């Protein structure tokens, strides 16, 4: 658990970069992210011109197509001050770790991207950094298991914050998963380009999920969520895969079976 002194001075406003997938495929995840951030007393701004960080094309090798989209992202988000929150470790890693690769022939752009990247946080990382992982304290009767999304874990080194956030939800029973840190096989275009390999990796993941007996899988990246949910549906399984923002939002909404404890909203 994070110790209080490491918590940085709390901002009052944050900017949300939803990611293209959340924006168009899973807006519920975006709303849940806003719910949790508002619950923490933050005003959430949503620059309405946002689209994508450019990762899909970059990862597929089409850098000349990715570059203008990434540059557009930098231009858009350098106009806002303060922290930028992203409900995706993968997109956060794109901006923080890979923009310097993509922009490597343009030193000025690399610098501008770095300044944006310094203010950009993955959702659970942001809560951990500025509020601490015990700041939510919701309630939810559920049993869940957690899948560690690769880019969040290995590109950004975010391991404990999501587990601590979930551990601090009252009534939520967390079931440990074998090989929780092994990839689900998504990998963006890889999942479409080489579906047989992607699915073989997924099958191992789904076996490990089902072995936990949990009825909910929590993950923190929409791509991985759809890979696992899409595979579970095909198996005829009723296990639900949710984004960590969704389960946290639910835990504080009062729509869980237990009432939200009063007086828990931080100032």
């Amino acid at each position: 658990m994070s110790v209080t002194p490491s918590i940085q001075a709390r901002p009052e406003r944050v900017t949300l970069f939803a990611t293209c997938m959340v924006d168009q495929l899973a807006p519920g995840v975006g709303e849940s992210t806003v719910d949790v951030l508002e619950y923490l007393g933050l005003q959430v701004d949503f620059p309405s011109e946002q689209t994508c960080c450019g990762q899909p094309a970059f990862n597929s090798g089409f850098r000349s197509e990715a570059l203008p989209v990434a540059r557009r992202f930098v231009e858009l988000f350098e106009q806002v001050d303060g922290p930028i929150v992203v409900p995706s470790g993968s997109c956060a890693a794109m901006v923080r770790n890979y923009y310097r690769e993509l922009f490597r022939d343009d030193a000025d752009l690399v610098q501008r991207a770095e300044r944006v990247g310094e203010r950009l946080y993955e959702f659970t990382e942001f809560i951990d950094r500025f509020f601490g992982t015990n700041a939510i304290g919701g309630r939810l009767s559920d049993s869940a298991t957690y899948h560690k999304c690769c880019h969040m874990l290995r590109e950004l080194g975010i391991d404990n914050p999501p587990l601590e956030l979930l551990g601090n939800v009252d009534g939520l029973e967390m079931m440990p998963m074998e090989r929780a840190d092994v990839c689900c096989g998504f990998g963006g275009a890889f999942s479409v380009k080489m579906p047989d390999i992607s699915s073989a990796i997924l099958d191992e993941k789904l076996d490990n999920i089902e072995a936990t007996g949990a009825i909910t899988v929590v993950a923190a990246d929409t791509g991985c969520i759809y890979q696992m949910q899409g595979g579970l549906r095909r198996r005829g399984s009723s296990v639900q895969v949710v984004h960590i923002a969704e389960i946290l939002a639910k835990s504080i909404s009062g729509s869980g079976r237990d009432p939200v404890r009063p007086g828990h909203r931080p100032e």
Partner: protein
Amino acid sequence: MKPETKQFRSKAAQTLANKSVLQSLDHVYTGFHEGRLSAAADTPNWEELRTKGKAIKDHTIAHLDYYLGLLADNVEKSGGHVFFANDAEEARLHIVKLARARDVKTVIKSKSMVSEEMALADALIGQGIEAVETDLGEYIIQLAGETPYHLIAPAIHKSRKEVAALLNDDFSEGDPVPDPTELTMSARAKLRGVFERADMSVTGVNFAIAESGSIALVTNEGNGRMSTSVPRIHVAVMGMEKIIPSIQDLSTMLRILIRSATGQRITAYITMINGPRKPEEEEGPEEFHLVIMNNGRDKLLADPQMRESLNCIRCGACLNACPVYRKVGGHAYGWVYPGPIGAIVSPVMTGLKDAHDLPNASSLCGACHEVCPVKINIPRMLLELRWRTAEGKVDPDDRASSVKERVIWKAWRMGMMGRRRFDLGARLSRLLMRPISKRGWIRKAPPPISGWTSTRDFPLVASKSLKERLAAREKHGRAKPGQTNRDRP
């Protein structure tokens, strides 16, 4: 070895359909990967050692010409011979010629991936020379007529039963499968005679130490030591990157190599060779030859984006951690080096055009980078190669993307360059896909999504984007929070 990188997909499909191989392959995770994890956890200065290992290799590769010169001088000072081979053929011809000139009848080989680049055993056998692999795994592979499946566990894909059938001529289907000790003993009995009559050995090199002209070999079976002490001629073969400056560096490198490879703290044998037998010594070979091979490594060296791959010490940790390697197996990669490291070095060493599937066969999960003892950023280089094969900007010959792909990504960019187009694209996709969807999920989609829906349901674009939902929320207050996939709009 002739590259067959072009057949990646068909060979991968073969492995995916072979349950027995997949089961055996999983042992690289439960055995090696988990062993590495606990060995790393038990080493208090593990991260420091990795940082040091990376620094040693970065430095050596940056001054490779100097250290190669120093190494060659010092090997010759100790009475050894050095041969620089520009490619696998030169190296192979040199060794075959040497064997014939010395009237060699039997060659014993200790494990060496570089000798696989040369296809050396077959070349010697072709000259009527008996050439036998003495590493147990390599021996099994040689009997099976295959190539190694893994950098340190060449026969990892073979079941115990298959091994029994290969080692015991009289083993028949239905016989009880002998335990590993029995199997090893029967191989040992067969190999003993070969060791005794061998007049030449060929070994690999784990590290060549420039300042002393020594080579270090790391083995668990003792075959390396037998190979370097019994026959009258010892030929050691190495890729030109397998070099470190000093014996102090060796202590760092051995610690990270062995823990990363097998999870052991130390192997059963570490053999240091310093030239041939000296006049005052009673044992050891009369001649020592070191063959230093390029074979395309200069292309990696000359390529600032790919150079870091020369830091590799061939521990195999990236293979064991890789979810793709564990499903497609070693042969799918089509050349000597399988797994994530193979996916970055093979395309450069053998040609990207035919090997373009290799860098694409990755979920970019980063497990390879996480476990690498010298911190090679393999995902970054996979992305670099994907770029080269998609766009051909470095060399037009590299381009392997289809017109269809290029059109798709152009259209994607156009859709992402403005919010209205982004929303329009999403609406259009929903409109087209909605008739084939059921409760927000699509079971069978047309290309380019058909690959996905061959095994997984695909989500339909939501009825309202987050932008619209947030705008409505501002107007009417909070929507119901915590909506899940179960109630997709």
